[in-house]
């Protein structure tokens, strides 16, 4: 089985994403949902080993970004070797300030984690996001031969475009 933990401060997209993930038939995927860290300690003993932690950030909400940033501090550093991934929604919305996307990019790049963009409002978008997440999850859970999560993360990690510090012309 593969275990993933979806962390989202708004607790909205994670539900539909979880349902799309468990529909995968070739392997059993278990999904745990949380709003933020720290997780309740009552669950510590019953919680299985997590293969992938996904931070879902809604770009239209500053609170969502800050909550994800604050939660990062509680995560054991060992997870950052390929078992953490960032997923961002509403990147195309016009109300998103460019600085926020840049800040998320810098955060993902500094932690060497992949950054995925998802479209949550259509069922097709949710399915696509789930599929891409599953490929990373398979590698993170060790189901892909000759690949470790660290190796994959080196290939998929977010990189900053060279002109990120220059003002954009939007």
């Amino acid at each position, binding site marked *: 089985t593969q275990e993933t*933990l979806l962390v989202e401060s708004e607790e909205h997209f994670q539900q539909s994403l*979880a349902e799309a993930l*468990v529909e995968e038939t070739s392997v*059993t995927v*278990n*999904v*745990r949902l949380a709003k933020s860290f720290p997780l*309740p300690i009552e669950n510590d003993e019953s919680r299985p080993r997590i293969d992938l932690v996904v931070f879902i950030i809604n770009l239209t909400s500053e609170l969502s970004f800050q909550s994800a940033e604050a939660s990062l501090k509680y995560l054991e550093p060992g997870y950052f070797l390929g078992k953490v991934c960032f997923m961002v929604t509403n990147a195309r919305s016009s109300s998103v300030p460019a600085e926020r996307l840049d800040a998320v990019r810098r955060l993902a790049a500094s932690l060497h984690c992949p950054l995925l963009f998802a479209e949550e409002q259509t069922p097709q978008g949710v399915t696509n996001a789930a599929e891409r997440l599953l490929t990373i999850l398979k590698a993170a859970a060790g189901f892909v031969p000759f690949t470790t999560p660290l190796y994959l993360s080196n290939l998929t990690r977010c990189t900053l475009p060279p002109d990120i510090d220059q003002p954009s012309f939007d």
Partner: protein
Amino acid sequence: MLTQHKQLAQLQTRCQTPEEDMQSFRNFPAPSSSSGGVLWRMAHIVEENKLTLTHLAELEMIHAMENPNQGMWYTFQLLEPENDAQSVELTQFKQQFKCHLSELLRQMSVKIKKHTDEAVWIRIALGSSFSKPNHLKPTYVVHYLQTPYVFVRNLTSKLKPLLSQALTLATRHQGVKEANLSGRNLTSIRDLLMRQYQQVFPTKYRSPPEEEDQPVLNQHIEKEQGGVAAHRRHMAHQAFGDGMLPQLQSAVYMLDTKFRDPNNRTMTEREETFKCVVKFSSIDLLESLRSCASSGIASAPVTPLLSSIPLKGRNYFVVTDNTPGPSSQGHQTQN
């Protein structure tokens, strides 16, 4: 519907003119646009049935009673009932009210009807010493006998003191004050004030776990912080109630307190109070506040500033600092 109302009003003024005017009006060819056509047909109906102004006023009142959720309603509360206030019943109230109001005003038109839900509706059209009552802008008053609540729509400043006096005398009370609750839906503000919505009473021990929101919860999906979320939801429902909530459109807080912000020392060090007005607007304010609290956007337990909207049945608050000490974490609300 609005244009039809205007046309009805125009017809009302027309009815005061003699028959010849109606005749000449009917002689015009029927206009092609639909609104003109409605006006023409209504003029025809009015003339055929020999409707008078009183009939039209009655029609308008019936319409208003069937559609109470229009316009802006303001609430008043009757104070200090006399000993026999509880025994005031409809005929006595009607007679006393009309009598008192006609003592105070010469030119006016008052109609009183009882609605099926025990509410007494009063329609008042005011004139002055020079003119007949203005039926275009009537004031509506709704009162539930044996309760101290009165709801008013379209009150003019001229009518206000006279209405207060007539109401207090007719209901055997000694005064009336503003109840600080206003809204577009009469049914909602009535339900809020008289607590006729589904409430959750505070319990010390949590009741057996309620049904899950998603009863078909997938066995592969598990919530880490389900307990915390359920607790938040419970507290939000305690503050605001279960099920359908009365619809309010706004809540206004007039703040007259000292500025408090640890990040802004210049403002905090000022001696005088900081006056500002905070207004919350929404299509359905209580529902949005409840979902803010249960989703964690508003901190739980719900601050008494917000929970006193349904608790005290008001949406206009004046907030001052009652206690100057540092222990006052929030602000005290004043009645």
